[in-house]
């Protein structure tokens, strides 16, 4: 069994993190980040042209993670490839030793840096999960036989703070029905709210492992910016005040402390099965967050 799947099944508190591939062929920093975290987490996501900004492919980055001894989780969005492109990359990923896939819709093209590119969205995230499961049963979406099936630990995302929440939950139930094994949530900051989501999620299907999304706050400005501009992210005022209270130049330190504290609480109170840490642009501090969480 693949390492990440094993961790999910073991009942331990699972920790994943992610790297954002660079724009260009200089991978020095990416490799540094991978090396820093690979032995401290159970899986490393590679984002897929995150925020619709063109970068090194998620698949290539997963291969790098694998080469460095990490456990890659392949993020796949439906924005840039039609079903044939997605399926052939799934086959390719599997033969290159990538055992985990996270299925996402993908941001719209015009939020990124290639405004005139064609948005594909041939499949949606639910149908992509179905495609993975079909290919595991030995067939592609055209109904054709594969000479050998794929095998993936397949997950998706959910936004517990989505407003309105009901349509989001309806879609979550479809992802569960399609056969996801794990979920990495959008960033959460209000643990009490998240507990309510967890009660719901356990009722839908207790077998799906849920990793709470932890996005590092780097300052009060960033928190306010996310509140105003990132759908489904709500940073409570108390946290913004806490970030403001940090000494000059110590805001990131404060953010690390907050992230560590949240992770510790989630773990101690067994709120969910683990966490997914997103230290966007500051992947190097992930070990510090883990240390702050006592992990």
């Amino acid at each position, binding site marked *: 069994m693949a390492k990440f799947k094993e961790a999910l099944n073991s009942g331990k508190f699972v920790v994943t993190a992610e790297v954002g591939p660079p724009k260009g062929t200089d991978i020095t920093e990416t490799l540094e980040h991978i090396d820093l975290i690979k032995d401290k987490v159970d899986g490393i996501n590679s984002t897929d042209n995150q925020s619709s900004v063109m970068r090194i492919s998620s698949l290539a980055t997963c291969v790098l993670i694998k080469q460095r001894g990490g456990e890659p989780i392949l993020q796949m969005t439906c924005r840039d490839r039609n079903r044939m492109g997605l399926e052939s990359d799934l086959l390719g990923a599997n033969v290159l030793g990538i055992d985990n896939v996270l299925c996402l*819709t993908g*941001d*719209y093209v015009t939020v990124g840096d290639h405004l005139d590119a064609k948005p594909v969205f041939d499949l949606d*995230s639910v*149908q992509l999960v179905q495609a993975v499961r079909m290919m595991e049963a030995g067939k592609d979406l055209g109904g054709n036989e594969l000479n050998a099936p794929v095998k993936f630990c397949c997950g998706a995302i959910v936004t517990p703070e989505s407003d309105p929440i009901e*349509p989001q939950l309806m879609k979550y139930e*479809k992802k569960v029905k399609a056969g996801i094994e794990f979920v990495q949530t959008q960033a959460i900051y209000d643990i009490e709210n998240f507990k309510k989501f967890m009660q719901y999620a356990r009722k839908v299907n207790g077998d799906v492992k849920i990793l709470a999304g932890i996005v590092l706050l780097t300052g009060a400005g960033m928190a306010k910016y996310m509140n105003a501009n990132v759908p*489904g992210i709500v940073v409570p005022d108390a946290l913004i005040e806490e970030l403001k209270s940090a000494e000059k130049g110590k805001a990131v330190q404060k953010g690390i402390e907050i992230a560590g504290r949240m992770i510790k609480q989630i773990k101690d109170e067994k709120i969910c099965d683990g966490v997914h840490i997103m230290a966007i642009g500051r992947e190097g501090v992930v070990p510090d967050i883990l240390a702050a969480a006592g992990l």
Partner: protein
Amino acid sequence: MIVAGKKPFAEINEMVKDHKKIMIAGCGTCVAVCMAGGEKEVELLASQLRLARKKDGKEVEIVEATVTRQCDREYMEPILDQARECDAVISMACGVGIQYLSDLIEEIPMYPGVNTRFIGTNESEGVWLERCMMCGNCVLGETGGICPIAICAKGLLNGPCGGTNKGKCEVSPDKDCAWTLIYNRLEKQGKLDNIREIFPPKKYSLHVNPITQVNPAYQHAQMEEHHG
């Protein structure tokens, strides 16, 4: 209806700069309603062109002709002779009308006077909204009469993406999120079960351009003819 927007005048002026006798052909149906290519817009473009040529000290003769519909041969007949006497035609119909008129007067260079955008409805004064992308496999019966393909930026069939934001779409705060609209309407109808099942992927095989549509009665007749 088909919705179009006017092409910028400078672009049209540049396209027809070498022509001396130009017909501007308007269409009295969709593009007239959306104020892009009806009689009034033909008149306006004609005077803009005349003015521009005068400024450049160049001659131009302009024939204005607006028909009821440029996608219908019957309505076009009366202007064809006049068109053949010109050395260019600017059609202000939608892309369909422009092509159809060009088919009828193949020897005359044809230029588009509008950019054809979508099929949709008038939402408020001067504002039109795309409503259908002609997918060939209509799901409106399940989605509460709201199209998830045209109204959702990503054409998603199984619910909202993570970018949905207080009823608005991640693409722009001016656009409604289709899936909030669909959910709310189905809730009102007590029909949320409609969207609990997973919709299968879209069928692009229905969309091999250019698509043809044959009325079943005629399909039969065609087959008979074929088999003698």
